[in-house]
């Protein structure tokens, strides 16, 4: 078997995730009680037998670097292959910040050229799905394709957020429209999963680098150009669950979907484990008086209060008399005695003071600072924020990372904003 290798594009800003990706790359955003978003793609790779992976990072890579490390949880700490983090670096031509997804690969052309094997798998680190890439390879080879794009059907209302493809019955792509504004005849969206013929890819990247005005992006430039030339570009229709958790609302919904009777993905499947970096934590401790229903709770949590319809990441403490409802609470956050957290996303290591009310009242004006992303009633609390005892926080509020008790001078109204200290950069 030829050695297979993949590149994971993990540089994106994820600006629609608001606070959650303000200080970390979107693929590093926690998901599903213990994972990071990129774990799904990384696990797909190793579960498909791909053990040579380059991760292209650019935006705030620290948390990703820390998470992936030498790749041990995925058995990627290997003498041959393994995982390599590819940051943009000055000093060699061509060199600069990655201008687009294609440019990111182009700038690592030497890395690519050192690899053998007929195909190059290019993935995105932003999506929640379980996929056996071997099926994609088989499809690609059967069609003698130059490129195969994995696609999934999306609802009509969402087509404008994706790259939409029109296809012939045999799967051949006849048109590729990146985030189309007008009406389209297809609802097949690109999943950001591309399998390229290696030589074709190298040729395309070199060519694209020389085109003035190109944004050097696979979806905007490379693929439409290739389709227009009538090359063998095929769509592989992925039949199972695939979720882009690009917005706060879709992130929230996707997390809570795992609490239902029929979760979208089986996380318990021993044949397709989603691997992640997990610290050694003791089992969940349920104290006398705890009441936890319809929830996911992870090792290291200590629960004395009430939790319903919520996802709790490792090490969360819910004090006696506290209530957590319809919420996502990340690592090591403490919910103080008698506090109520309702429809909120609370980032890591935050402290909610005793008797505080987070997500309160019926008013729902959109958030003042990011009205387009925070308007469905969720409250977002940033990493290491400290909320004072008894504080009331209305819906659609945004509490910045690292705010302290003294930053609150009055109750936070619905749609309100409390900003923490500016990030150092």
């Amino acid at each position, binding site marked *: 078997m030829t050695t297979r290798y993949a590149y994971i594009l993990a540089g994106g800003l994820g600006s629609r995730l608001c606070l959650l990706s303000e200080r970390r790359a979107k693929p590093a955003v926690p998901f599903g*009680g213990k994972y990071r978003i990129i774990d799904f793609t990384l696990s797909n790779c190793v579960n498909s037998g791909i053990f040579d992976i380059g991760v292209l990072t650019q935006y705030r890579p620290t948390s990703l670097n820390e998470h992936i490390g030498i790749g041990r949880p995925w058995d990627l700490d290997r003498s041959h292959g393994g995982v390599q983090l590819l940051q943009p670096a000055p000093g060699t031509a061509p060199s600069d910040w990655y201008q687009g997804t294609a440019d990111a690969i182009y700038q690592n052309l030497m890395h690519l050229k050192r690899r053998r094997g007929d195909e190059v798998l290019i993935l995105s680190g932003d999506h929640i799905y379980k996929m056996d890439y071997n099926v994609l390879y088989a499809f690609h080879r059967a069609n003698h394709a130059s490129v195969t794009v994995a696609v999934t059907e999306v609802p009509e209302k969402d087509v404008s957020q994706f790259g939409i493809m029109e296809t012939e019955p045999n799967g051949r792509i006849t048109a590729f429209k990146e985030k189309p504004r007008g009406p389209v005849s297809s609802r097949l969206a690109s999943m950001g999963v591309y399998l390229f013929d290696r030589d074709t890819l190298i040729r395309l990247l070199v060519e694209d680098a020389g085109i003035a005005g190109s944004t050097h992006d696979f979806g905007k430039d490379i693929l439409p150009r290739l389709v227009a030339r009538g090359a063998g570009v095929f769509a592989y229709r992925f039949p199972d669950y695939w979720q882009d958790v690009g917005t706060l609302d879709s992130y929230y919904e996707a997390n809570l979907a795992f609490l239902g009777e029929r979760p979208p993905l089986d996380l318990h499947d021993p044949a397709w484990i989603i691997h992640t970096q997990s610290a*050694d934590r003791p089992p969940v401790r349920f104290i006398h008086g705890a009441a*936890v*229903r319809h929830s996911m*709770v992870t090792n290291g949590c200590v629960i004395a209060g009430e939790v319903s319809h919520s996802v709790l990441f490792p090490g969360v403490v819910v004090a006696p008399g506290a209530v957590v409802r319809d919420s996502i609470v990340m690592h090591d956050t403490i919910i103080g005695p008698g506090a109520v957290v309702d429809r909120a996303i609370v980032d890591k290591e935050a402290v909610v003071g005793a008797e505080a009310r987070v997500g309160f009242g019926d008013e729902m004006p959109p958030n003042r600072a990011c009205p387009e992303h925070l308007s469905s009633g969720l409250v977002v609390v940033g990493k290491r924020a400290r909320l004072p005892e008894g504080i009331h926080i209305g819906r659609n509020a945004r509490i910045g990372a690292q705010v302290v008790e003294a930053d609150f001078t009055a109750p936070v109204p619905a749609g309100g904003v409390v900003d923490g200290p500016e990030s150092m950069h």
Partner: protein
Amino acid sequence: MRNVMALILSGGGGERLGVLSAERAVSALPFGGKYRVIDFSLSNCCHSGIGHVGVLAQHAPASLNDHIGAGRPWDLDRRQGGVVILQPFQTRSHAGWYRGTADAITQNWDYLEERRPDRVLVLSGDHVYRMDYRALFLAHEQRGASVTLAVTRVPADQTRRFGMVTMDRGGRVRTLEEKPERSAASHASMGIYVFEFDVLREMLRSRPVDLVLDVLRPLVDAGERVYAHEFNGFWEDVGTVASYYRANLELVQPEPRLQLHDSRWPILTRDEERPAVLLSGDASVEDSLVANGCVIEGRVERSILFAGVRVGPGAAVRDAVVMADVVIDGGARVNRAILDKYARVGEGAVVGDGDEPGPPDLQWLAGLVLVGKDAWVPPGGRVMRPASIGVGGRYEDFIDGVLPSGSVVGNRRWYEELR
């Protein structure tokens, strides 16, 4: 501590643990929802800065080999030092099982001689406790001791389980009695010894069998500098069903004396990747430890659930230790029981019914039901307390769906039936 090597004695087959140690060493017994018993000693070594550990294993060593591997969870996968499993072996001139604790060390003396640590720390792999061995070494050094043993206070009615120690005011050991019926001593030896390398080597020349009877006691009697160092924390030898059960249930007390949720001294273990615990709309869990991978649709009280346990709708689990991947089907009840890995309790079955004390020769069951690995309690079946179901137990072991109080069912393995 570069010049120290720890030896963890993990040879014990744990006869008094019945079916739980049928296919594993006591040290490899699951404990506390995700650990193995030996994790406590290994983690103590790791946090005390001891980077060279030998594990002396004899009974069912595969379970330990598998768990410890190259020692990565404890940062013992090292070029220098690290962890090594020392099993009985053959040479051209010699072959023999370990006859006892001292013999196990003697048989591996070549290994120690090559490394020549200044001191040897002898530990047991069967104990559950959190201890900073640095305090022990400090006391040992300050007193210029040849041997220092860790001791702890035990109740007067427990003396027959331990080596009892009396000391003078300076901590020097005066007497050492092995498992006396009654004793004036209030302190028990914890089976934790610091030896000066040369002192231990000298003592092993006479090919002693037992470390306490043939090495320590002669040293005390000869007036050697043997000192005791008192330890005040929680410590339990889990070599019996009663003590194993008690130590597990200690973890779900309102104020547990053994704290797992302390990030300064985490108990490290080899962990499988499992998703978060999932609790359904009807779940109810109190006073319990539940590990990742569990799916709870019923009621759980005062219990320890290891990874991947499933508790079906309407099922109730009380005062139980339930090991990894056990399935408790809907409507079943489990009460005062220890269920080993992969066991299954069928729909509506009851495990741990009744309240009979059981025959005197089953005192070791401590009034509990033990369900062996892979055993299957049929739907609607009833297991009366106390009882023990062997590894792979199944429907044929029941009489009209009932397993009476006092039953001890042997192990069944398909490959044994081939013999």
